[in-house]
């Protein structure tokens, strides 16, 4: 029976982070990219809480994670509003269609 330590949490968080980056790099759907960004934020949250619990002690990590959760919610709210507005203008949320300005 092994003990669960900080390393296990870090593996999970590194995996989630890598998935998030991969999703952001490959998805062309705006909401898909937003999901990738949320995965990265959640990876950071796992880090904050795990480090806070095993390395640092106290509530610093947990408080930081709480702030990040709120920021992620605010970001999702404004991003979805902007995507809706984009859809109204372009009838799609494929970010590759956003190419009228370039250079």
């Amino acid at each position, binding site marked *: 029976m092994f003990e669960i330590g900080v390393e296990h949490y870090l593996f999970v968080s590194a995996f989630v*982070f890598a998935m*998030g980056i991969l999703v*952001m790099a490959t998805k062309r759907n*705006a909401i898909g*990219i*937003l999901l*990738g*960004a949320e995965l*990265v*934020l959640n*990876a*950071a*949250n796992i*880090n*904050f809480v*795990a*480090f*806070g619990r095993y*390395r*640092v*002690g*106290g*509530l*610093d*990590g947990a*408080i*930081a994670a709480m*702030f*990040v959760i709120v*920021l992620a919610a*605010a*970001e999702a709210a*404004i*991003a979805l*509003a*902007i*995507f809706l*507005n*984009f859809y*109204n*203008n*372009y009838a799609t949320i494929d*970010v590759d269609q*956003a190419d*009228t*300005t*370039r*250079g």
Partner: protein
Amino acid sequence: MHETLGLTMPLLAKIWLPAAGDLRLVLPDLLLIATIVAILLAPLLSRRSLRVPGLLALLGAVVGALACWFVIGDVAASGSDLFGVAARDGSSGPAMLVADRVSLFFRMFLMVFLIVIVAMWMMTDGEREQNPHEFLTLLLASALGMSLMTSANHLLMVIVAIELASLPSYGLAGFDKFRRTAAEASVKYVVFGAATSGLMIYGASLLFGMFGTLHVPTLAARLATGGPGGPLLAVGLLAFFAGVGFKISAVPFHFWCPDVFEGASLPVATWLSVASKAAGLLLLLRMVFAFAGHAGGEYSQYVLPTISYGVGVFAILTCTFANFAAYRQTNIRRMLAYSSIAHAGYMLMAGAIVVRSSGYENAMSAVVAYLLIYMFMNLGAFMTLGLVAADTGEESMKSFAGLGWRDALTAAAMTVCLISLVGLPPLGGFYVKWWILAALGGAAREANMPFLWVLALVLALNTAVSLYYYARVVWQMYFVPPEHEKPLRAPGAGKALVVACALLLILTGTIWVRPLKSMADRYTSNMYTVSAARTDAGDGLAAAVRP
């Protein structure tokens, strides 16, 4: 209910009870918040009048600027910690914010710029804007985020401040719901912003794990006394830099910048081109100088030069790439966007000066003077573009053809702004660039860092390169015949603003050189400095609530 309150209140008081002196030093921020609340409540009384919110915003900005002016004298020498969380043993915990003259000076700068932007907006889009309250709320909220960015001293505060500046900016970029380019600009902005802020927060979580704190001076102190290093540290710092680099549009985090400037309305583009970059730069310089506040064997030998090279390479990439990209542009708005990226690169060079000496006060002074002059030259250029675009209906290079014959005064003022953007004497833009060069050279000599000479050389070469694309506009205005000879139809206030900017640039390049320099020196002397008492700040919030 009563019992819980009885338990909670002393605990809250123990964790956080702001001192009156601290509140005084954040008075400008509190005034901004009050203005936002007033603008949101105004429709209850004024039935969505179009004028009231604009006037309220102007009033708030004027009072805020005056408040900065009165408070700036009260700042303690070498700055002060604000809102330190008191630990159980009575010692003060890590401070979230700091106050020093630079931070208050920046707030004053921001308020003055806010006044101009609100006035510009009222003259152009404000007349027919259907939702002025919402627009101004977003604008002021982003101003609040920017002013917090310049005094943040804790990575959590940095993250919150950057997001508070960014999220309203995404909304501002796409505020005009019926224009396709605005919708596109805001989508690009929000997607890049979400990606880089994710990276930044992940980087902060790594730094938190490595050093056990998010308080920047403590973090720097632990790094200096042989904290963990190696690749993980580099990844953490680099990921964190992505978020800050996004705000100052450092290459390769700059992709949003030209598209957003092109898609957003003119006041918003002007606002983002100066204010958001200024805030990001001051934030970055504060971080870098916190690291430079320490010295010692391995740390001075490896860590500090790495930071210096890192920031320097980003600065070189930023200004060189932007200057060459500006060549190809036919749309003046995009050209000005790349020009603003290049200027951010020049100012970023000051961040490579990480030697513990008078070096970084010089660097900060040069950057503050640069920001002030940059505000006037950019404002003049963007405003002229706005006038020309309103008259001809397009923003291409061609729309400037023959402006010198159609409106001699505006064209002359625009020429002054452009020459100042290049950085030629006898205009303000020359001296501020010269001071950056002098700060780089002085630090290179003092600390024997040849890399800083390279930066100075790159800065000089880039100035020569940039001459070409600015001169192209001047050529259009004077040597290309206009399509028709009718004089430029433009509001008088707009022309007056452009001329005022040009006059200020001429004055700061001639008789006001010394006053400008001594003012920048005065506001950057006694910067917040890291001392032992400020770094051994306990374990953070935990110390206050741990049983």
